[in-house]
């Protein structure tokens, strides 16, 4: 019963000890949405522009399933 959560760029700094190779192995909470997960991680949803669930973009209110791979990305615009 777990979620694999991958954080991008600045979000990595907000979770101490984040390892970009492994991501975060978090407990799956039945009924939790992407927004709920973001809240659980203590991240600011206003700074997250892209949510990917199992490689596909998802909305904040998408309910997560056991074993989901979640990717969270802030806006990236540098060149």
């Amino acid at each position, binding site marked *: 019963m777990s979620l694999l959560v991958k954080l991008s760029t600045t979000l990595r*700094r907000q979770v101490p000890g984040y390892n970009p190779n492994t991501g975060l192995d978090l407990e799956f909470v039945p009924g939790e949405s992407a927004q709920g997960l973001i809240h659980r991680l203590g991240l600011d949803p206003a700074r997250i522009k892209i949510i990917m669930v199992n490689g596909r973009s998802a909305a904040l209110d998408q309910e997560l399933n056991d074993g989901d791979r979640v990717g969270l990305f802030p806006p990236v615009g540098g060149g």
Partner: protein
Amino acid sequence: MPELRRILAPYLQENSLPEGEVFYAVSLAGLEALAAEQDGGLKQAMLECLEQGIWPERFRANRGELSAQDQARLLNSSVAVMGCGGLGGLACLLLARLGVGELLLVDGDSFEESNLNRQMLATPETLGRPKAQVAAQAAASLNPACHARGEVAWIGPDNLPALVQGCQVAVDCLDNLTARYHLEDACRAAGLPLVHGALAGMEGMVMVIPPQGPGLRDLHGPTPPPKDHGAEVLLGTPTPTPAAVASLQVSEAMKLLLGRKGLGPGQLLHLDLAAPALEILTLG
């Protein structure tokens, strides 16, 4: 054809491949002799040779991945590179080396010291000079058959329609999302595919935006996020990342020009040099 062979004979080199196949390559001196004989340009001479399956030496290492026909197609292509900094500086050099015949290089900025960590065209000698002008000179000097035009201008809704007109592909090498949204709008209006590339820290994103298909609004919302929300403000743009992203952008641009399958609509290539990892994500 016999005429072409006569002119080129002193400059032709026969090359054998392992499978017994043979191909000919011609040196720059041969191309110049052909151009002089025909009162034409270097590009025209290259095209004539490629038509006969004779490879200009400067492109012979493209052979194998590219056919002579592909190489000729690139020489007849026109690409707009928007932004000539970290991404655009390298993209412009790679496109010139690849053999794209026409390049439009646009940037309103001039080189400054803080560009030296990553911007290929920023050198102590070019500091203070307009990036677009330096880019055009660099591209033309790398490949004299490449017609490179530098446009020292900040892009916006007013000048974009005229700038992208006549190009087959635009490469988004800008450094802020507001300008990137404007560019996407202009490319959609002109029916032009856009190769988006952006980065922050050790991560980068590449997306091919077809004229009708998912784009930046599907990625970042209906309005561009404020510039200070971009992850690059905190994480910077360190040396390896722009080079990797620009290389992926040029590869996608090349495939677009050659009609090859590349990143599909709504596919987002996420590059993570920290792990390192490369993944394709899907929008929608």
